[in-house]
Every structure is written in C-alpha cells, then in structure tokens.
C-alpha cells in the first residue's frame, strides 16, 4: 500500500496592500465546492525571478506586446472556453471594428466595446509617435489567460511566446494580462 500523501504545507501569506482585491481568496470562495486550485508560488527568497537589465532606454526600445485578454480578429477563429493554449497575431494597426474578444474568465463587456481595454494598440502607437518608446513591434499577440494548467503554460505557451519575442528581436516585452 502506498504511503499516505502528506498534505503540502501552506505557503507563507502573501505581502499584499490592504486596499487591493484578494483574487486568490475570492476565487477559492467562488469554487468552494471543488478541490482548491493551487496557484503558482515562487518564493522570492528561494526562486527569485530571472533578471535581464534593459539594454537601452525606453525611447530607443522596440517593444513586443502580449495580451491575455482573448483578442482576435473577426476573421480568425475565436478562442475556446477554457484551457485554450493557442494565440492570435493582431496587426498593430488593426481597425478596432475588426477585433473581437472571447474570454470566459473576466467580464468582457468593456473589452468587447473597446478592445483597447486589454490590448492597448492605439496607446502604443501614440507612445511610439511621441517617442516615449522606440517602436511597437508588429504583430501583437493575444491569447486567453486562465489556463488552469501551470504545467502546460510552462511546457507549451511560455516557450512559444519566448520564441516569438526573440524572433521579433524585441528589446522589451510588455505584458498585459486580463
């Protein structure tokens, strides 16, 4: 008989300011009847994030943009309901009228009305024109966050997006979750 699995120790509480919404706690309450989802935890002391200094000032940087807001062109296949690992390439100058938003995990009312809420293409074009950034790199990439499998994100999604950013020769990646 296999030994009984010991429950994993609870990770230390997160250092969170008092006024922010505690989404982890609220999600636990929403799905109280189900096995609790184990959010990814990296202890900054033992698993600090990798670090690459900015090579040049923002004003000279080519910026790649990735949004997990579930934005796609009307001509592209919509995203599936959940655990959809695919992505869509969005031209930087896409007409907002041709953009659609399909996502199950957040209230998309505003994003459907104005996809700039989750993929700020016009803002990035304006910042490039003003010289705040060097340029925004085409195309932008969008996918649906709320992929419940951290294993699949690590194994499939993250390496693909890493290669996208490397191929684009980006100086910086700007990530807009939803």
């Amino acid at each position, binding site marked *: 008989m296999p030994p009984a699995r010991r429950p994993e120790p609870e990770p230390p509480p*997160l250092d*969170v300011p008092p006024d*922010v*919404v505690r*989404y*982890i706690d609220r*999600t636990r309450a*929403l*799905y109280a009847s*189900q*096995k609790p989802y184990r*959010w*990814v*935890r*990296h202890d900054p002391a033992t*698993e*600090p*994030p*990798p*670090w*690459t*200094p900015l090579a040049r*000032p*923002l004003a000279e940087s080519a910026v790649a943009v*990735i949004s997990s*807001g579930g934005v796609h062109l009307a001509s592209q296949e919509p995203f599936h*309901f959940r655990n959809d690992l695919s992505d869509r390439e969005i031209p930087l100058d896409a007409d907002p009228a041709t953009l659609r938003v399909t996502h*199950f*995990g*957040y*209230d*998309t*009312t*505003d994003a459907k*009305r*104005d996809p*700039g*809420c989750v*993929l*700020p293409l*016009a*803002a990035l074009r304006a*910042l490039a024109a003003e010289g705040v950034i060097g340029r925004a790199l085409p195309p932008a990439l969008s996918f649906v966050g709320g992929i*419940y*499998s*951290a*294993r*699949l994100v*690590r194994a499939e*999604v*993250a390496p693909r997006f*890493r290669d996208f950013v490397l191929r684009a020769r980006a*100086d*910086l*990646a*700007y*990530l*807009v*979750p*939803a």
Partner: protein
Amino acid sequence: MGLIAREIEQAGVPTIAVTSAWDITAAVCPPRSVYLHYPLGHQGGKPGDLADQIAVTRTALELGAAITRPGAIVRAPRRWDVPGDEGWEARAYAPEHTPVGAGGTPSRG
C-alpha cells in the same frame, strides 16, 4: 502571465507586466510588475478613453523600466473613477457577482 514573463526574461529579454491582481502577481513573482488599481479586464485602460489608455500604458512602461529590484511590484498612480462604478472592489469576483461565464472547473494538468 507571470510564468511567461519569467520565461522571456530568462531568455534575455526584459519584461514589464501591468497587473490588477496584486496577490496573483506576488505569488508568481515575475521580474517587473506595475500595479493598476482597476477592475480586471481593464489593464489597458478605461473603455473608450484613449487618453487614459495612453497614460496607463506610459506609466506602466516608465515605472516598470525604472524597477531595479527583481520581483518588485510598483503602484501606478491611477484611479478608477468611472461614474456608477464606485465600490467595484467589493463586487469583483464576489460569489454573488460571479463573472460572466466563469463556470469552468479549475483543474490541474
């Protein structure tokens, strides 16, 4: 998105993430994050408000680029002042205000 940020940064490209979920971001600990106190689904800015979207994106990029401590989360000095949306924090993902379509079963792969 934090896992993706870590992967990209590991490959030698710096990342800046804008976030409205401080706790989830702190848990994953991406290299550079800028916290925006807006409801989820608006990390690009307010709907139909290009000036706000420009200000949010500019602030996130500038504050993010200035981060020197790996894993830091810095707060963007922006307020969600959409009329009629006062007290949004109490409604966000509260059980009596389940988000649209959030009926999926969380599972681990």
